[in-house]
């Protein structure tokens, strides 16, 4: 049933928000979502605003708690973990070695230089500062972040510069699973092309990517498959080839 390079196996995933302080209103966002993704895949989430694309991505990172169903992911060591059941230490371990997440906005830490922000995922898995910074520098250069900015905190950078720092930080660790939330939203054409190349290289290297892309050209350039989500209706998810 499972293919040897299966990386993500989501079944009957439900997510609803219960807003206690707003009259206990229930917002069902994901209903019975199921899909699989393998090494070398770039699964693109599509659907209108409010369909739950970002919610699904956040569930895959353990940032949102699933309300029902299972989210099984395969770690670098081959072990499967269900994020819907995992304890906090398991999720933290998966984030260190298996799942990286590129959010739309960088949550910048005051006073930490850009080079160290990007190198941090490597440092967390024990790589020495020197080689980690060298790889960070190479990636920043490729993403056209000017070298004069590397020693500064990204807190004061422009939106596009921050996004490229975020992308570098997401890609650097070589995590087998990479989640991308509109990684090219505030980039110019040249830098979008660099990100497309990075995604294709990640695919070729056997990483498994799941992403949201509003730019059609980027989506067509990177997608291997599409998962269409619809706003809160039963059986909302349909997988198309």
């Amino acid at each position, binding site marked *: 049933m499972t293919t040897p390079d299966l990386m993500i196996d989501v079944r009957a995933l439900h997510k609803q928000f219960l807003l206690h*302080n707003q009259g206990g209103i229930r917002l069902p966002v994901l209903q019975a979502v199921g899909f699989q993704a393998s090494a070398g895949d770039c699964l693109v989430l599509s659907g209108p605003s409010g369909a739950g694309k970002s919610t699904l991505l956040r569930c895959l990172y353990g940032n949102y*708690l699933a309300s029902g169903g299972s989210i099984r992911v395969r770690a670098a060591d081959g072990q499967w973990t269900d994020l819907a059941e995992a304890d906090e230490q398991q999720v933290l371990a998966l984030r260190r070695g298996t799942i990286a997440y590129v959010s739309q906005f960088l949550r910048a830490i005051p006073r930490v230089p850009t080079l160290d922000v990007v190198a941090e995922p490597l440092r967390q898995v024990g790589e020495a500062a020197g080689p980690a910074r060298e790889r960070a520098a190479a990636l920043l250069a490729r993403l056209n972040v000017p070298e004069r900015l590397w020693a500064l905190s990204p807190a004061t950078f422009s939106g596009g510069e921050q996004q490229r720092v975020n992308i570098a930080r997401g890609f650097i660790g070589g995590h087998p699973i990479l989640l991308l939330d509109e990684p090219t939203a505030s980039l110019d054409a040249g830098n979008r092309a660099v990100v497309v190349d990075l995604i294709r290289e990640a695919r070729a290297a056997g990483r498994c990517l799941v992403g949201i892309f509003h730019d059609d050209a980027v989506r067509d350039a990177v997608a291997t498959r599409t998962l269409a989500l619809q706003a809160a209706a039963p059986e909302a998810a349909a997988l198309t080839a």
Partner: protein
Amino acid sequence: MTRALLSVRNLTRTWDGVHGCRGVSFDLYPGEVLCVVGESGSGKSTLLQALSWQAEPESGSVWYDVDRAGLVDLATLTGAQRRLLARTDWGFVRQHARDGLRMQVSAGANIAERLMAVGQRHYGALREAAAGWLDRMEIDAARLDDAPAAFSGGMQQRLQIARNLVTHPRLVLMDEPTASLDVSVQARLLDLLRQLVTDLRLAAIVVTHDLAVARLLAQRTLVMRGGSVVESGLTDQILDDPQHPYTQLLVSSILQS
């Protein structure tokens, strides 16, 4: 899987049978920062005092990896053993620096005190260690002989942290470490704490009412209300997808910048 450094089980300590903390359980791992958030009177500070045995627990237990050989129930140690642990392997950073410092003696003496308590006597080496820590905390080493009373609030807080870290503790407990500081000084202190925790692989429990502090510092967060933990989880999950009504209220009350 790494071993827990600290394990708290069903810990209860009240001051009058009502106010305090009740039935608190959690594990803390080396290199991990745990924030305890909640409003005034929710039992956050009592929890810190009970788990560090400054206020003896009424029930429940606290287990600590005393000799790096596994968890030991602190109740089985003598008072002297627990005090040694508190002086060497633990740090305690208080909200008001003047409660954690000796205000009459010099900054250098404040830092050196814990080293002397574990037997170091060489004057030159003590001065050198103190100067090194001042430098690390971004305080001019020329102020080694000044009394803390002559320092600004932010410097006093950094001095208090240096005083605690000089013996290389593995566990640091902080009670509202940034609450009494100006916003600009807060950011600097938080950033220093982040670096220290990473560089020294410290485990820390930080009590705060400020969720932004938790977001910046802590991998995991406990939310307390009325003496009990109402929600616990990864900090980003607690802040982005809060489950308990009280946590939802706290998160929705954050001012948007």
